């Protein structure tokens, strides 16, 4: 089983992803978990970010990712909602979700 997520980039971030604004990303419906009590877990936004960085990112990863999250200055919307309201990286992705990454770093 897999999940399909629509990913969009804005504010110039698309340049880091082959200059393509919209991507359809397929993730496995479960991902390995480090805890022994729950050996598998649904993918989270953190998993999606890592997946994007390793598979779709074509240029300058430091402009998109920092440690295990997105670089400061990147606004993340999950289904048109600020990811801070959804638990940020811990949000568990569902099939058909729309995730938008917008760079706010291009000033005035």
């Amino acid at each position, binding site marked *: 089983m897999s999940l399909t997520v629509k990913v969009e980039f804005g504010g110039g971030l698309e340049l880091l992803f082959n200059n393509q604004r919209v991507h359809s990303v397929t993730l496995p419906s479960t991902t390995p978990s480090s805890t022994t009590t729950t050996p598998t877990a649904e993918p989270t936004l953190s998993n999606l970010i890592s997946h994007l960085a390793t598979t779709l990112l074509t240029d300058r990863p430091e402009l998109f990712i920092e440690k295990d999250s997105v670089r*400061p200055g990147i606004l993340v*919307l999950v289904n048109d909602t600020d990811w801070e309201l959804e638990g940020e990286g811990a949000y568990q992705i569902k099939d058909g979700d729309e995730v*938008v990454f917008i760079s706010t770093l291009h000033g005035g």
Partner: protein
Amino acid sequence: MSSCGNPATETDALMKRRPKFDKTRDCVKCKENTGNIVIRHAVYCKACFTPMISFKFRRGLEPFVNDEPQGSRRKGLKASGNLLVGLSGGVGSTVLLDLIHQSYFATRTDVTGGKDHPRNEAIWPKGRICYVEICNAFPDMRDRTEEVRSAASKYDSLEFLPLRLEDAFDESWWISVGGKPNSENLSVDFSDEDLLISNISNDSSRDIHPIPRLRSFLSTLPTQTAISRTVPTLVRLLLLYTARTTGSSHLVLGTSLTSLSISLISSISQGAGYVVREEAQEEWQGNGLAKPIRIIRPLRDIGMKECAAWAWWHGLKIVRKERIPGGTQDIAVLTKEFIVGLEKDYPSTVSTIARTCGKLAPKQGSVRACILCERPVQDGIEDWKSKTSLRTLSGTKEASMQSPSYPQHLTPHLCYACHTTLTSRSSRGALHTGSSRVSLPVWVNSGLAKPTRHEVSPILEEVDSEKTLGSEVWQLRTLKEEDMKQAISGFLLETD
């Protein structure tokens, strides 16, 4: 007295991180809808977000439209001139343009009383959009003019005026905006601490085209920080002179709260603390202006996150900016990284920076404007700098510091920040190894041809010299301490 505890051994000793939002996920305004965005710990739904941003924008602009403050009796808004919108293609200015258009220039369908009713009269007779392209300043930089023009084309009631950064070194542009050219072509030597000026009119090897002049000027600046500071200064002056030419009473810029906080900290760290208020808002008294032009930043209470959300939800096109090459460790970049990181974890502190700086005011008034950035200069700054920094190992020339050596040196005509920008040396060594003599921006060249604008006292090259100017005889001589005390003896209090 209890101790704070050791977080390594006591988990309760570590202060819990404040939640990203207060209370519930419901909108704090309507309290009905589920929130869509968190702004400094407050949750707003999409429906309430838009009017909230519009309100903040109007609050940041409308009190400064009329010539006189509105006071307790609110009158209609009526500007004394046109409006010029500075557009860079970035998030802030794109959002600003959208708000300006929808608030003041879009065709309205809710007019009452007829289109000729006074309350439906346009605040500004005409609005224009001005974009300054910087690509020719650096090699291999993309020209964004047509992309920005395309993004601005949807606002067809506003005329689009493209400029280029090299216009700052173009005499024909200077004449087109009403500037008076200097018959002499002056250059400045960046290797000289006092910024020696010389006339290169007869130098056949001098650059006569604006682009080489611009590139030479920027590449000869002593540090990367200086380049990052000088480019926005040139852009600002180009916009101001364009505003003057177009009869604009207001120049609006899309500086967001985040960008403002960055520029405040960055400029203060580069010696521009005296004009910290001007970073948020200023009035420019250009030559020949009956009334000053107001530079307003209506988005100064709106963070970058809110601007990005507005741009996304309203389908605005953002034109990607080109990064100034080489700028990874300059003060502006480092400050931006710090502030953006701060905004992620502690968003309220970013607004605190802007609010605190807004309370600052200089102790003394200003007697003149800097010839380069045309912002107020702190009185007595030359004397202060000569006493605080070791500038030369040879004998100090006190006479030349007290009376500007026009037109020999540029230093007495600059503010502290601009002088620091042009002379501060990098610990990593000079960026440029060629000639350090470069042409000056056209308004500086023109300003040096007008001694009455920036000169404080007449030219006296040597101590104990005398010069006749018109019907006046000026003399410069050193005074002993006893002589100075004698001169003010009538004002001294008696001491026992």
